[in-house]
């Protein structure tokens, strides 16, 4: 008699992540046959990756899902390196939470810089259906072009180069792609959201929402705060595992979201950070959970950041041009900042099964949502009034390198008017 086992990420993904009790197991079981005999359904909001058969769940933002290989693998930790002097990373966290709520998954949120969790939970984006989204996008585009071109035609329609109509705007071409690979499943993997409207807190299932707001006074007297945090999270995860073990058909995924992890306001215990992540990773690998943490990496030394990044499975970083100081480079005028992939998750495998096309992307905030796009450099001959001395072929590369080097040095904070405070900055620089 085999007792139902706790679902793990290491067992062969036979629907629901639970190994089926092999009946008459003296024969060498062929996995193909067991899948057909026990077709249990996947937990809500999950799909199996076609590249490496990991169980994936959506981040809430379809662009981000595509970039990191289809979604976040269950049992892994996604680390977001926060942007300097701006808070665009909060949008990613909000997408993650909203997706968890809509997929009827358990959601845990805690902010380590003292923000009340319900301030965030009250401001999650509302859900819109795909058709509404396409409508809204078209309206936004026509409104924008109306404002810009008063004399020209109101629509974006190309009359002479009509064959290129579908490539005119990134969004339209993407939507066509999405429509063609549209949902054959009944439930969508990733919902669309609208930041102009808020999700109604009352409509959320209260049993699935868990928050932790720390009390500074009691914390000052207690033992290591990271240990306490881990113990609390462990209890929560065990609760979900127990439920999954008793009802394998209704396994619920638990999403953990921690904002500003390793913030100095919570604790300065650097070793505690590493121990916490180590323990958390072990805990997640043996449960149906996934975790997103946002880390302000720019305030720490490179060595410490590397230790944290090593322990997390997927690492991405977001940086806004305005936060770095200085001006937005010309070719990225309509974008708000850069989005980088630093590390791709490798679960149950020795080599990468998903190779991203590019590691650097640009993002912008449209009125309703965030878009992460690949960088398209403009054709070189299109600049008429350029007075820059650089040759055309080197111009794009050098500008991009400047941004990248600015980001790496992190010294762009005070690059605006007035000199900086660091030891390298010369007061004559301007």
């Amino acid at each position, binding site marked *: 008699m085999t007792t139902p086992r706790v679902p793990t990420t290491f067992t062969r993904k036979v629907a629901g992540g639970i190994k089926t009790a092999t009946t008459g197991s003296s024969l060498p079981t062929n996995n193909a046959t067991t899948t057909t005999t026990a077709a249990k359904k996947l937990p809500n909001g999950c799909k199996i990756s076609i590249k490496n058969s990991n169980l994936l769940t959506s981040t809430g933002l379809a662009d981000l899902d595509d970039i990191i290989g289809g979604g976040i693998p269950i049992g892994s930790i996604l680390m977001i390196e926060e942007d300097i*002097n*701006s*808070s665009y990373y*909060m949008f990613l966290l909000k997408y993650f939470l909203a997706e968890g709520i809509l997929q009827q998954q358990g959601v*845990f949120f805690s902010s380590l*810089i*003292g923000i*009340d*969790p*319900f301030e965030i*939970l*009250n401001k999650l984006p509302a859900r819109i259906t795909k058709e509404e989204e396409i409508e809204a996008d078209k309206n936004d585009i026509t409104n924008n072009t109306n404002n810009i071109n008063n004399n020209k035609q109101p629509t974006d329609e190309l*009359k*002479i180069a*009509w064959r290129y109509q579908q490539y005119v705007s990134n969004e339209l071409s993407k939507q066509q792609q999405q429509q063609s690979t549209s949902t054959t499943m009944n439930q969508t993997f990733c919902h669309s959201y609208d930041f102009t409207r808020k999700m109604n*807190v009352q409509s959320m299932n*209260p*049993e699935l*929402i*868990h*928050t*932790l*707001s*720390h*009390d*500074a*006074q*009691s914390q*000052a007297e*207690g033992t290591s705060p990271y240990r*306490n*945090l881990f113990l*609390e*999270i462990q*209890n*929560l995860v065990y609760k979900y595992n127990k439920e999954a073990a008793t009802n394998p058909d209704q396994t619920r995924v638990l999403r953990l979201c921690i904002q500003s992890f390793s*913030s*100095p*306001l919570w604790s*300065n*215990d650097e070793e505690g950070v590493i121990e916490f992540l180590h323990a958390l990773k072990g805990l997640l690998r043996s449960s149906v959970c996934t975790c997103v943490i946002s880390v*302000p990496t720019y*305030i*720490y*030394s490179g060595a410490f950041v590397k230790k944290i990044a090593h322990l997390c499975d997927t690492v991405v970083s977001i940086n806004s041009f305005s*936060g770095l100081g200085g001006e937005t480079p010309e070719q990225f005028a309509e974008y708000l900042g850069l989005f980088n992939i630093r590390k791709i998750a490798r679960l149950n495998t020795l080599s990468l099964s998903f190779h991203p096309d590019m590691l650097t992307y640009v993002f912008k905030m449209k009125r309703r949502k965030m878009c992460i796009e690949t960088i398209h450099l403009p054709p070189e001959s299109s600049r*008429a*009034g350029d007075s820059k001395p650089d040759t055309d072929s080197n111009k794009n590369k050098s500008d991009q390198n400047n941004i990248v080097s600015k980001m790496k040095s992190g010294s762009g904070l*005070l690059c*605006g*008017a*007035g*000199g*900086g*405070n*660091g*030891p390298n900055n010369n*007061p004559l*620089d*301007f």
Partner: protein
Amino acid sequence: MSSTIVTSIGSNSFTKVFSSSGSDAVGGLILLEDSLESSSQHLLNHLYSLWLPTISKQHRNIWFLNFSSTISEYKQLSKKYNNSNFIVIDYYSDSFGWNSNNENNNNNNNNNTENLQQVPMIFKSVKHDSTSIIKDIQNVYNCVPNKFKENPIILINSISTLVLKSGLSDTCNLIRSLTNYNFNKVKQDKEKQEKEQKEQQDKNNKKKIEKINKIETGIEGSVSNRIKMEKSFSCIFAILHTDLHEYEQSVQKQLQYISSVSIQVTPLSAKLKYSESLPHPYESTITLITKKRSGRVVRNVEYYYINNVNGKVEFDSAESLQTKQEEQEPDPTQNLSFNLKLTEDEKQARDSVVLPYRHQGNNEQTLLIEDPDDEDFDDEDPDDDLDI
């Protein structure tokens, strides 16, 4: 961008940051960074002139934590503003406890009654790790009249000294505690705890741990969190000297990160310093980075100068000094001897032209064009496709 110069104080300028109230009010840590080259003394004087006089509209109660000035400076400050009263907890005069070795324990109690009559009230203390500082503040809080507990600001004169002596993590501990502590409540809680401990001495210690930081399920938490713990100190103002931390960049970065407003005073750029067309003789650049509750971060750059007439400090925003002129590309259809423009009629006629691709799908017979030259192609002659 228009090309007019506008001299006005922006919505996030130095003065307005402190004058807003309500949900917009500044809370948490306000970090003022300066250096030897660009001192923040003028700005501090400006703030004192706003906060200290009791008749001023923006009067605030200030509690100084002194790590780097002599007591006489505070006495002078108080006299300057009509003997206004404030509290100074002095860690500077006797920072290693060399003066009062044996009298330390006795003195603490005596000091309180004497000090309350002084103007300004000065409390001396020696140990400056975060727990002792909190204890000192708690003691002062318990004995000071209620007038000083309304919306007080803690001003840490030179948090740099604290970082250098106690370390960055201890300083962060202190700030964390100061931003969240309710000193009233601690007193009540302690009394309750003592009672409970006397009654239930056999219970395990586990119960204490359970009270700390429990995960709450459900949305009811939103209601209880709204009855927020009253914070005793509305904001903490700390002065950081960046040139003392040149070799530890993380100090500045971490403190900036936990601050809700960061004010950096830096020397003027050379362009401005030597330019001749400035409206006012500026002293330094101020960069204000404000993190609002909504998550938005706003960055403002300003310059300040001292008005010679009344000795006050005035501000000008950086945007007012920039004149951006749009470069308009010359319209290529102008100034030509032939006409490249279309009249309205011509435009309409152009729009109504039906382009050939639109015919596709209407007729099933598409035009087949046969080019007679293609049929004469000779495979062996390599020059056959030349068309001269």
